[in-house]
């Protein structure tokens, strides 16, 4: 059985906090580009963009960044479906905030850097994640972390979003169990 570590009410508070932190760090929404990393980073980035717009009263630029082809384990796995990359115009000189669900080994974000390099030259790149479960394999840290989650090696940390999963939550699935 999955263990819920963050429920929907807390989920919403966390998103609010992250939205505020992003604005605070950046000194406003100007130059900001939120890029969600498929799959669930896309929904999270969309929510954050909505919140930032509410707070600032002006829209923030939003896009998605698929990193499938930049994965360093592409060859070792069966052919993966490729997600969509769509940018809200040029990212040159923008402040890009990458949004992902779970930060773990850091390899996804490493791939995202490579992907960004092919798309333009942002002034700065920041990272916001919903859950950070540690165990990094690359020297990468998030600027905004929703919740630090302690999980054992065989366990799986999942971020659920209502658009895809019917509810908002962070859960831990036990060893050998299917999510």
């Amino acid at each position, binding site marked *: 059985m999955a263990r819920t570590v963050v429920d929907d009410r807390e989920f919403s508070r966390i998103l609010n906090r992250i939205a505020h932190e992003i604005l605070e760090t950046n000194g406003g929404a100007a130059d900001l580009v939120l890029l969600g990393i498929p799959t669930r980073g896309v929904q999270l980035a969309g929510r954050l963009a909505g919140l930032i717009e509410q707070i600032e009263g002006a829209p923030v630029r939003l896009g998605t960044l*698929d990193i499938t082809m930049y994965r360093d384990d592409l*060859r*070792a796995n069966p052919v993966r*479906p490729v*997600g969509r990359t*769509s940018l809200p115009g040029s990212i040159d000189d923008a402040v890009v905030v990458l949004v992902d669900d779970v930060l773990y080994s850091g390899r996804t974000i490493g791939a995202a850097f490579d992907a960004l390099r092919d*798309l333009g030259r942002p002034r700065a790149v920041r990272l916001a994640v919903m859950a950070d479960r540690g165990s990094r394999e690359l020297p990468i840290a998030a600027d905004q972390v929703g919740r630090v989650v302690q999980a054992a090696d065989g366990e799986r940390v999942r971020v659920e979003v209502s658009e895809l999963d019917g509810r908002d939550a962070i859960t831990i699935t036990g060893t050998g169990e299917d999510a």
Partner: protein
Amino acid sequence: MRHLLSCADLDESEVLSLLDLAVEMQQVQSRPVKKLPALRGRTIVNIFFEDSTRTRTSFEIAGKWLSADTINVSAKGSSVSKGESLRDTMLTLDAMGADAFVIRHSSSGAASQVAGWVRAHVINAGDGQHEHPTQALLDAYTMRQHFARVANGTSKGPGTGFAGKRIAIVGDLLHSRVVRSNVLLQRILGGDVVLVAPPTLLPTGVEDWGCEVTDDLDAVLPSADIVMMLRVQRERMAGGFFPTEREYTESFGLTPGRLAGLKPTAAICHPGPMNRGVEISPAAADAANSLVLDQVSAGVAVRMSVLYHLLAAEEGAQG
């Protein structure tokens, strides 16, 4: 998918997956850095036993944009004259460590034969009068975008289905690999193919292909959503397949008069190279509803998608 030899080897989910990914691949064409790293370290050998600048270049760009090393081997003049068999030629290249062969050959079945001999993946870039599967895929991609534009006013997104769409393919069907691949692909996608040709240029058994077959182009055009004109080679006239160019154009050419009779939403395709003034009038080739250049641009994206599907994962990779 290990090889792409024939559209008959594809199922619906594979076709849709190939076409959908091509949409993403096409975006790369508008990027500042037209490069994806997916096939870094892979070697793709384009071996063309028959000239085709268009197809070869398209595959070469597709491979390069996916970061593969692409090598072009012009094998025209064929190894037969050098006393080397096709098998020996291909085994030699295979032994050099190619990961994939993109093969064009004037003989039907050559790609299938090669696939039986080599270790590498094989992509059929046109084999004689048999098939040209990536051409049919790019045709389908282009048509899909067109149908979406007609339906939604935008070509963004994956496009719409082929059900109920009438696709007329006109010309030298007997010697065309494009028609065979398109008929097989539309059997999967659900388009309604009408074949139009003089009776001397119909393949034996065409009546069993599940398509309407006619020699009356004028009866077909008013209901067509897509009119695909095939190149008619001048040597066919010498071969006695039809009496004169004039007679051919009169009966089977997309003349300005016929162009005017098309549905407003109909579009014109041609796999190229065009014989302007023979099967297609300049007015039709350059018409606003001509998709000829869209086809070329789609060619790269579709071939990137094919290369990705075949080569991105190591053989036998476990999930």
